[in-house]
């Protein structure tokens, strides 16, 4: 992958000047290339990665496996697009294997998510079945471990 994108994936808040130093590029070229990635839709947004377990939010997340019937024109994309548009659906993937779509759905409590599944999702034309699993704890997100990591145990000066 492009080195610039790698740096942004590690820390999207890194200043253009610092990125320029790291990659040995002029700062204005870094800025231009980032704008270009944004314009082309390759960079679709910037978000903070939170350890939500620490926030005691009124929030539950369900992972939902969905079996669907592909549509005659548009295949899985049409039905997946309809499902993904619901704001409750935070993430949606087309999968190989024993089900078709994998959804990450958020709600304030279990009942709200259950209502979404039974009233919105299952009733959609083309949805054959769902299996809902609630997430209990997050250990790692986007490559970042959620537990505090140990401190640097190396000696301060070594040969």
């Amino acid at each position, binding site marked *: 992958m492009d080195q610039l994108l790698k740096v942004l994936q590690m820390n999207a808040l890194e200043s253009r000047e610092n990125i320029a*130093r790291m990659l*040995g590029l002029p700062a204005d070229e870094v800025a231009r290339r980032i704008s270009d990635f944004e314009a082309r839709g390759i960079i679709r947004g910037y978000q903070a990665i939170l350890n939500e377990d620490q926030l005691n939010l009124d929030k539950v997340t369900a992972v939902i496996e969905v079996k669907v019937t592909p549509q005659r024109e548009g295949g899985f994309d049409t039905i997946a697009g309809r499902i993904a548009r619901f704001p409750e659906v935070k993430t949606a993937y087309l999968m190989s294997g024993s089900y078709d779509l994998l959804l990450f759905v958020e709600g304030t409590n279990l009942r709200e998510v259950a209502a979404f599944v039974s009233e919105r999702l299952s009733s959609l034309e083309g949805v054959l079945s769902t299996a809902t699993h609630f997430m209990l704890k997050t250990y790692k997100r986007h490559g970042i471990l959620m537990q505090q990591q140990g401190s640097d145990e190396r000696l301060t000066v070594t040969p």
Partner: protein
Amino acid sequence: MNDSLSLRNRLNTVVRDIPRSGIRDFFDIVTTMKDVLSLGIGEPDFDTPWHVRESTVFALERGATHYTSNLGYLELRQALSSYVRKNFGAEYNPDNEVLVTVGVSEALDLALRAIINPGDEVLYHEPCYVSYRATILFAHGVPLEVSTRAEDGFRLTRAMLEARVTPRTKVLMLNFPNNPTGAVMSRADLEDIAAFVKERDLLLITDEIYAELTHDGAHTSIVSLPGLRERTVFLHGFSKAWAMTGFRLGYACGPAPLIEAMMKIHQYTMLCASSLSQKAALEALTHPGPELGNMLDEYRRRRNYLAAAFADMGVDCIRPLGAFYAFPSVAKYGLSSRDFALQLLQEEKVAVVPGTAFGACGEGFIRCAYATSMDNVKEAMRRMGRFIERRQAHGQTH
């Protein structure tokens, strides 16, 4: 009281007369201070790749807790042989030309002890790793240092060697990519050295521990050049590229008679390298993941950042091409390396290592290791910039 026993006078004189490592000295000062931002650490800040650690735990569970063959597990030697063939361009028979050791440090000690008779001269280049000179002396060899220079990019040249070599010289030691300078040797540079070694009929010990950490272009090993393999002990290990320093695992490859001689010493002094570390190394070689590439990318970004930061603050530094060290010159700030490092530590709490820890010709330089997080690199550069600005302002008033 120890004095009454005159213990110091009863010590082996070679050991007694070798000064403690300059880096050890500096370490003692640094440890008295709190919250130091260290660019003084010569080991990766990354953890060992998880698959290596996980498989070591598994090996422990499975009971890999016994002595191994003196040479090391055959399976590991086979994997090493194939890794060296692929990446360094030399063939070694895993049965009798590969020896697994406790880090490259042990391998280097074995090689010197296996080769050197008292009084034999060993050519090596400075600035260099802190143990080279001492290891030669422990082997009762005569160290012949050759000073590399910033104006040559700290590369070694044939002319430098010709100026030092004598008929009693037996061995040349090389270390590229280099700790502490970050210098590497091109194929053409190595060809000159190879010709010298052959014409003078020397043996060669090449420590290529940093080979994978070569930033611009690929590493060339001198063992891949014609006629060198027969007279060379090739040293490599897992500490740097795989971030496995604490595993203490290295290895030596060479012609059977040399490895056999080294094995004899290893057998009687060390017996074998740690069985668990050997299992870890085997996993590292047989299941290469994305970790090495990711670490190298990150080192390179830090290298670029450091180089740009030095340029911005007007510090002269040859471009570091390998390992994870920059070796900038601080001569123009009117302080010795040691005083520069001490004042930087006291005023800005940034630890660097005085160049003199790596040989007298390191005077005027400091070693900055970028084996620390990008945030630390950035903050250290900010503080060093501030420090240098003050030095310059101070200089102008005089």
